[in-house]
Structures are given as structure tokens and as C-alpha cells.
């Protein structure tokens, strides 16, 4: 099982460790709800070093990266970060990734932990006609996320760089923070303002400790449990749940991350066809009316008992005091206010479709 450079740190902090897609990771330290609330109110620090990093360099790197992803690289400058699905020819998703423009000919893809090898193989296999070099550098880098309304204040105490200079979805590709060299971006997966920090694996324990000590009672270490409830409330998709090789970005509601026009990319034909034929299934939000938690894979029915889809994620929402879910539903039923039934164990319990996101994101977007 994979261990991140912060494994010993987690153990010493008393984390409860679990197997997560082949990685031994902290699921919680002090409790998922407490950690969740701290991120919404103040700040939390997450080890996300299990995430992968794939570097694409060479004369064709921009052109090739643009060919891989559904979002557009046009106009991207060093320091810019974009989010994008990466599709198969048939429109299903290989993964969803962040693309960091390090320089004109250097692009770093931050990819999901369980997809590292699959993504690397896919990218390499498609690189044949491009003059590029593709490297899996996941082992070299640790990734630490610091999220929440006080994230910037805490980090500003351990760096001389003015963090206001890093806008939303921008990065400083090489700066000093907490006595180590790192790339810092204003990105995250919680629906709050915050940063993701990439640093050499060897430097990660020092940086993690520095942030925790500086943050003191303003910050808590958070595990994957809180990471999931935070992203869920904000309706940020999780690969394998709201996006997969069988769920296209259009079905996931990610049309805004798909480029239209002349530029060719993998999956273009399938996605354009899906639009012209009408998107048949969509990820839909719902709120539980009856008690119970709708979990991944549970069936969804109409009031008349007709099966219309399945749950992709479901949880209590600590910030809303409600129990919500996301489901891939037949497009006829996605309008808000539809009463649906969720099959939980041997019962069918009532829920109602609602708008996404459940929690309004509190990103700090700078006026340019």
C-alpha cells in the first residue's frame, strides 16, 4: 500500500488511517464533522500527496495538452491553472485534472490518485504524433491543501510573498513558504477560499508542521472524510462517482469546461453528438425528505416505482443541517421539485430534486 511522505506525521497526530485506492491515508483526526466545520469557519490542512503529477514538456506540449482536455488552453499564461475533464473518444472521462502552466512549454497535470497509472498510459499512448515528453513525477512531489477563510492569513505568516498576488486559479510556480520551495495555487476542493501547495516530498513534513504550528487554534488537520463532505456540499464532482468512463462531462454538468469551435480534442465528436441528440442523463441534486442517507449505488425511482437512475454520492451536509444526495438521473426528472424515491436497504424513502450546489462556494475571485 502507498504511503505519502506525511504518513509518520499522520500517525503522530493520532489520525485514523484507511486504505483509499491503494493508499494508506487519514480519514479523520478529531472527527469528520468537527474538521468540516473548522474549514468552513476558519481553516483546515489536508495531505493530498496521493494525488499524481504528470509533466508534459517539449515543443508541442501546449498543442498536445489542449488535444487531451475538453477545456481550452487558448490564452493560458505561465502561472495560470485550469480545471478540465479529460475524455475518451466516446466522451466518457479518463479523469478530471488541473493543468498548471509552468512556462510556455511546460504543463503539469494534477491527477486523481487512483488514476495516475491509467492517465499516464493514456497520455503516453496519445502522444505518438506530438513532439513531447511525458513524465510521471508523482513520487517526487507532495501536495498539501490549506483551505478555509483563514487559510491566506495563516500562510501569509510563513512567507514573504504577498498572497494577494495569487488570484483565483492562479499559481506562483516557485516561491518560498515555511522555509521550503513550493508551487502555490489558489485552488481547492472544499468550496472555500484556499491554497494547494506542491513541494518536494522530503520537505512536506517540515511544511505541514510549520503550517499547523503557525495556524495553532485557527487550523486543524483534516482527513479524507471531511474532504469528501466539503466537496460534496459544494457539488464538486468526484471521479468514480459523478464522473467516470461511463459518465460524460456533459452529464456531470461540466459543459462550461468544454471548448467549442475548430480545435480538435479527444472526445470532441462524441460530446458534440451528445449535445445535438440531447443529454439523456444528468447528475441531479436531491434533498432527503424522509430519514436515511442515500449512498453511492442506491437505486432511484419515481413515485410510481419506475427506476430512473442511481445515487452517485450522498451524505449529511454539516454546514446545512440537511441530508442531500447526487444522482445520475434520466433527464426527464432533473427539474427541481420532483419527488423521487431512494431505495435504502429494504425500503423506499422520499427525496426531492433540488438545485446544485447545496452550499454556495465562497471563492475569493479578484477583480482584474
Amino acid at each position, binding site marked *: 500500500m502507498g504511503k505519502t511522505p506525511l504518513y509518520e506525521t499522520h500517525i503522530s497526530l493520532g489520525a485514523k488511517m484507511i486504505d483509499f485506492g491503494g493508499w494508506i491515508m487519514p480519514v479523520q483526526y478529531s472527527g469528520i464533522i468537527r474538521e468540516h466545520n473548522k474549514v468552513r469557519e476558519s481553516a483546515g490542512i489536508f495531505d493530498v500527496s496521493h494525488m499524481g503529477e504528470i509533466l508534459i514538456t517539449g515543443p508541442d506540449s501546449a498543442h498536445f495538452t489542449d488535444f487531451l482536455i475538453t477545456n481550452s488552453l487558448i490564452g493560458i499564461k505561465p502561472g495560470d491553472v485550469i480545471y478540465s475533464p479529460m475524455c475518451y473518444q466516446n466522451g466518457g472521462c479518463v479523469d478530471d485534472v488541473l493543468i498548471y502552466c509552468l512556462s510556455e512549454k511546460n504543463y503539469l497535470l494534477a491527477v486523481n490518485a487512483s488514476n495516475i497509472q491509467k492517465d499516464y498510459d493514456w497520455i503516453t499512448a496519445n502522444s505518438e504524433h506530438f513532439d513531447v515528453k511525458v513524465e510521471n513525477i508523482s513520487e517526487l512531489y507532495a501536495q498539501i491543501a490549506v483551505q478555509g477563510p483563514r487559510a491566506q492569513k495563516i500562510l501569509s505568516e510563513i512567507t514573504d510573498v504577498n498572497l494577494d498576488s495569487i488570484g483565483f486559479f492562479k499559481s506562483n510556480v516557485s516561491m518560498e513558504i515555511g522555509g521550503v520551495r513550493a508551487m502555490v495555487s489558489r485552488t481547492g476542493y472544499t468550496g472555500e477560499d484556499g491554497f494547494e501547495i506542491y513541494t518536494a516530498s522530503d520537505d512536506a513534513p517540515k511544511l505541514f508542521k510549520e503550517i499547523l504550528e503557525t495556524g495553532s487554534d485557527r487550523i486543524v488537520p483534516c482527513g479524507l*472524510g471531511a474532504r469528501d463532505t466539503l466537496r460534496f456540499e459544494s457539488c464538486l464532482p468526484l471521479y468514480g462517482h459523478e464522473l467516470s468512463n461511463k459518465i460524460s462531462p456533459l452529464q456531470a454538468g461540466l459543459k462550461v469546461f468544454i471548448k467549442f469551435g475548430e480545435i480538435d480534442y479527444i472526445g470532441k465528436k462524441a460530446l458534440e453528438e451528445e449535445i445535438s441528440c440531447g443529454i439523456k442523463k444528468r447528475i441531479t441534486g436531491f434533498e432527503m425528505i424522509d430519514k436515511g442517507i442515500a449512498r453511492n449505488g442506491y437505486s432511484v425511482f419515481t413515485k410510481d416505482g419506475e427506476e430512473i437512475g442511481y445515487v452517485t454520492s450522498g451524505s449529511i451536509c454539516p454546514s446545512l443541517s440537511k441530508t442531500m444526495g447526487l444522482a445520475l438521473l434520466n433527464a426527464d426528472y432533473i427539474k427541481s421539485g420532483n419527488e423521487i424515491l431512494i431505495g435504502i436497504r429494504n425500503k423506499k424513502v422520499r427525496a426531492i430534486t433540488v438545485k446544485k450546489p447545496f452550499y454556495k462556494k465562497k471563492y475569493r475571485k479578484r477583480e482584474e
Partner: protein
Amino acid sequence: MPSKNLKYSKDHEWVRVDGDIAVIGITNYAQLQLGDIVYVELPEVGVTVERDEVVCAVESVKTAADIITPISGEVVEANVDLDDGPELINDDSFAAWIMKIQISDMSEIDNLMDEAEYADFCENED
């Protein structure tokens, strides 16, 4: 706190025998494994259950855990306090009982572990 009078199942339930009634809850080990408990699906009062049958469920943020009865009999009471206070199990899992079963076969009690046996059992689970 656990008491010497409690018996334990391999599914991490505690059983307190009170005459012909078995009071059943989940152990501290179980609540620690589950984490924040957010919903308890209580059993229906009046139903007859067989040993090893899934009777109800306890749900934490991360997961749903079946409650498997270690005792056969009729469910005579469910702890309705858990409807609005599922976290009572996290607070004190030995106080927050889940259900009471009228025992139909007293010999089933003998299959359960005592405290020392259960402690050994948990050690091997880790």
C-alpha cells in the same frame, strides 16, 4: 462504561440480559470505528427476529453499518431517543442502547463473549 455483566457479539454489539429481555447496543470499539454517527434506523417494535439477522442500521458520515442481532426473539422496544440524537452513541455507546428483544432461546446467550474474550477479539481485528 462497560460493565462486567455485559456480553459481546462478534459484530461488536453489547448485550445486557435483564430477565428474559436482552438490551442491545454497539460497543465503544464499534462507535470509534464508525466515527460521527448521524442516523440510526431503528427496528420495528413487534417484529420477530432470528439470530444473525440484519435488524436495523447505524449510519456514520462515512458508512452504514448493519445491526445484526445476536439474539432471537421479539423486538419489544427501540430507543426512540436515537431518532433525534444519533450522536448519543458516540457520547456513550454503553448507555445508548438501540433495542430490547424478548429472548426466545436463552441458550443463545452462551454463544456470546465475555469482556475479556471480547477485548482479545478486538485486538485481533486491528
